[in-house]
């Protein structure tokens, strides 16, 4: 098929995104669940609460901490990842850094906000799904944010020219097969601003391709934001209506 990817999408199409807020009733202050294709992530947020340890107390702002759990059954093969697994640590740091700059931490001095992310199923774009889930859970918890943080992935086919001799378009929102095949990056932006808060790439790519990839990624973030915003508004409306009765 001309111009179609292995799962039938065009280069600039997202996979189906399904998101939900307040998924667990009493567990946490905020919770969310997001599916991006077959990548499924659950997120719980607690706080602002008293820090769990002394080291986490900051006099003038809140501490943001993040816990990432990979379910042993989340991949194709069963892999148990411990607390000190490199990939887990990497994700934790990425999410923690991203949200430390987005949450209005100065409002909650000497307290801690914990984001715990559970990865139930992996099919490419894990970090992006985690960031999106965390945004939704933080909104659900009522924690003031500067704006939405939305993340998306973009990949670039390694061939220099496609069949027509033109430079190939970057692929938006890569799945697992694509992710393991071609270089890809994860980009997260703040709201509508197109300002990047997180950018993560683990492969080699030609420098001239990078800009196009980031541009496609940013356009994907805007689409993701629209979907998330719609769900947040729907959820909020539903909640208000329930209260009104």
């Amino acid at each position, binding site marked *: 098929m001309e111009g179609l990817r292995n799962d039938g999408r065009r280069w600039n199409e997202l996979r189906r995104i399904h998101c939900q807020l307040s998924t*667990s*009733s009493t*567990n946490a202050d905020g919770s969310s669940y997001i599916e991006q294709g077959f990548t499924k992530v659950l997120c719980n947020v607690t706080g602002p609460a008293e820090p769990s340890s002394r080291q986490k107390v900051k006099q003038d702002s809140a501490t943001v901490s993040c816990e990432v759990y990979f379910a*042993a*059954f*989340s991949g194709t093969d069963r892999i148990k990842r411990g607390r000190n697994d490199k990939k887990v640590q990497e994700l934790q740091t990425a999410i923690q850094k991203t949200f430390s700059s987005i949450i209005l931490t100065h409002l909650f001095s000497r307290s801690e906000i*914990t984001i715990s992310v559970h990865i139930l199923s992996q099919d490419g774009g894990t970090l992006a799904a985690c960031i999106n889930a965390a945004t939704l859970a933080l909104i659900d918890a009522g924690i003031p944010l500067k704006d939405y943080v939305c993340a998306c992935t973009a990949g670039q086919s390694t061939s220099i020219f496609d069949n027509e001799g033109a430079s190939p378009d970057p692929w938006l929102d890569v799945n697992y097969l694509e992710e393991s095949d071609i270089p890809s990056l994860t980009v997260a932006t703040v709201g509508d601003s197109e300002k990047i808060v997180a950018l993560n790439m683990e492969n080699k790519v030609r420098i001239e391709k990078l800009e196009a990839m980031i541009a496609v990624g940013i356009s994907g973030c805007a689409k993701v934001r629209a979907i998330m915003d719609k769900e947040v508004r729907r959820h909020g409306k539903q909640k208000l209506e329930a209260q009104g009765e």
Partner: protein
Amino acid sequence: MPPPTPLSPPELSYLYASLSLSPPIRLDLRTPTQFRPLVAECSFLPHCNGSARVCMAEAGECIVGIKAELEKDATTKYATVIEREKWIEVSVEVAGGGVSGPGSGVGIGGISGAGGATGRDEGDGGAAVWLKEGLLAGGAGGWSILDRLVISSGWHWKIYIDVLLLTPTSHPSPLLISAAVNMALDSTYLPKLTSPHDVDDIPTFSDDWAISAPLYEPTTFPRPPMSLPVVAVGDNVFLDPSVAEVAAAEAGLVVTLSLSDSQGNCDIVGIRSMEVGRGGGKEGDRKGINRTLLRQMVNACVKEAGEVIKGLGETTHKQMFRA
């Protein structure tokens, strides 16, 4: 140590008093044999052979993923070592839902009894032992789940049951975990074998999930086991106790049952005593269970369980064939 509760001794004493009335009054106004509502869905993880998610308001949320892997029977120079008990591996991971750190001395409904554990991060081991015991115990009836795992001579499935528990309390209800595992097992399918049974080569399987075989045939019995917690206060017996009720109770059991026919009759496949708080009672009260009470508690489970297990099974099958 008994499950910690936010309740003070006077509150426990009040709770104890209201639960030992005739008829008793439960905090949430349930009847003694009424269960709390739960939300359950299954087969939602594409990478798993079977999966389920069960939520209960107070107890939290439990996600179970079951994966089957091909494994060769271990052979030495002289013998084929068949350790069938190792064909099923259960692991329980407790992530405190952001409330507490992972495995911070958690005891699953007192099954693992945090009191017995002198170290940390030991709480979930007991639950894994208990879940596996329930699965294998059904095998005493001449039929064993392990028989279903045999593929061909020299090959078998190895089943990994991973339980992920997101819970705010340190002593979540065994019902939550057991319901999730029950649903996940009920929705587990294994790919169909396409190579002959009696060949030692690596078996091959069909890619077509439409012809895959269920681990538990939906029309045959026994069905996957399910455990019900039951506590006693005075002369009254309560099914599916809440955390507060466990703290006030004098005696507790976890009864594991498995459906034995389509009418909803159950066989007992295991009973374990459950750790309870012995909160509101007076000193010198009951210290154990006498035989009359034991009979009463188990009877309550056997009578009520059939409908619950059947209901859960029907929900599972509805969700399975909807897709």
